[in-house]
């Protein structure tokens, strides 16, 4: 098993009101591609309830920094009671969604994802020794990089939902 270190823990964003669900999804995918993340959608669930649609999305985008270090984000998006609404903007009617959304982002740094140094106990010991002692500077550097990416995404999502207003 590759070693995973939790770098950013439960960075949470909540929003209630109007939003464009499709535009949000497209925006997220665009953000991944511009920031060189491979988008991996592990789960996409949709349930019809009496109060609207409930949608759960779990994304695990990753970025390979080197052959040894890999940054992973775990993004859990929960939409509750999503309903379609029509809003008039500049004298034109547009279709939007209304509901509650909660986004939780975790950031991980995975080392040795190719499992090369895990074949023998001695190799694994040397891998740990190098990670924690000799290459500590690099480990810290990549931990910082994934943490920065998590906060960058958090800021981007805040911009999307206009939370700076």
């Amino acid at each position, binding site marked *: 098993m590759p070693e995973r270190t939790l770098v950013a823990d439960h960075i949470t964003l909540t929003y209630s009101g109007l939003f464009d669900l*499709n535009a949000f999804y497209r925006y997220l995918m665009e953000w991944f591609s511009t920031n060189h993340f491979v988008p991996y959608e592990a789960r996409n669930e949709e349930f019809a309830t009496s109060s609207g649609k409930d949608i759960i999305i779990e994304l695990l985008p990753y970025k390979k920094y080197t052959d040894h270090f890999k940054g992973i984000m775990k993004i859990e998006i929960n939409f509750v009671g999503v309903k379609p609404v029509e809003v008039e903007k500049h004298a034109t009617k547009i279709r939007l969604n209304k509901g509650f959304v909660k986004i939780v982002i975790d950031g991980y740094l995975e080392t040795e994802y190719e499992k090369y140094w895990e074949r023998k106990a001695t190799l694994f010991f040397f891998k740990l020794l190098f990670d924690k002692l000799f290459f500590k500077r690099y480990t810290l550097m990549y931990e910082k990089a994934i943490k920065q990416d998590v906060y960058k995404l958090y800021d981007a999502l805040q911009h999307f939902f206009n939370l700076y207003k």
Partner: protein
Amino acid sequence: MVPEPTYETHRAMPTLTIRYSGMFDFDGLFTMIARWFKEKKFWYEEHTYKHTLAAPFAEEEIGMSGEREVTPFVKFTIDVTMKLWNMKETTVTFKGEKKKLLTGRIEIKINGAVDIDYQKWFAKSKIWRIVADFYYKYIIKKTIEEKWEDDLFTLMSQLHSKIKNFLEMGAK
């Protein structure tokens, strides 16, 4: 006995999961997936079909898979498993036409794998195994991990978004 290669030759991709609850056109979905396999030149087969009746609802499990030979050395496999619960048939009038739809819960799992040396050319002797290990690790490694694996995952993602579009899911 010929030893196993140290390099993984069955390279499984991460699973993509879709869960949906509501009304949907199951026949249309089934045809769409089968057609997609044929369009992308996969050798398509339906390997599982289970139907359980637990009145008043029914349950179904369907397994479909597709295989495509990329080169005589590499093969792509995509496996789609569909599970349906609380199934009930309803007739709906859509654009003046009567249509039979299903209401219930559906779970679709898409799995994929890149199989290297699927014809077992390198499994003949110990010497060939050593040659294979050298070939995988130092000559063809980048092509496997950066081309074939990416190509297969792109195909899986395409099917994934096609299913989401068909089910008219919100986040697509």
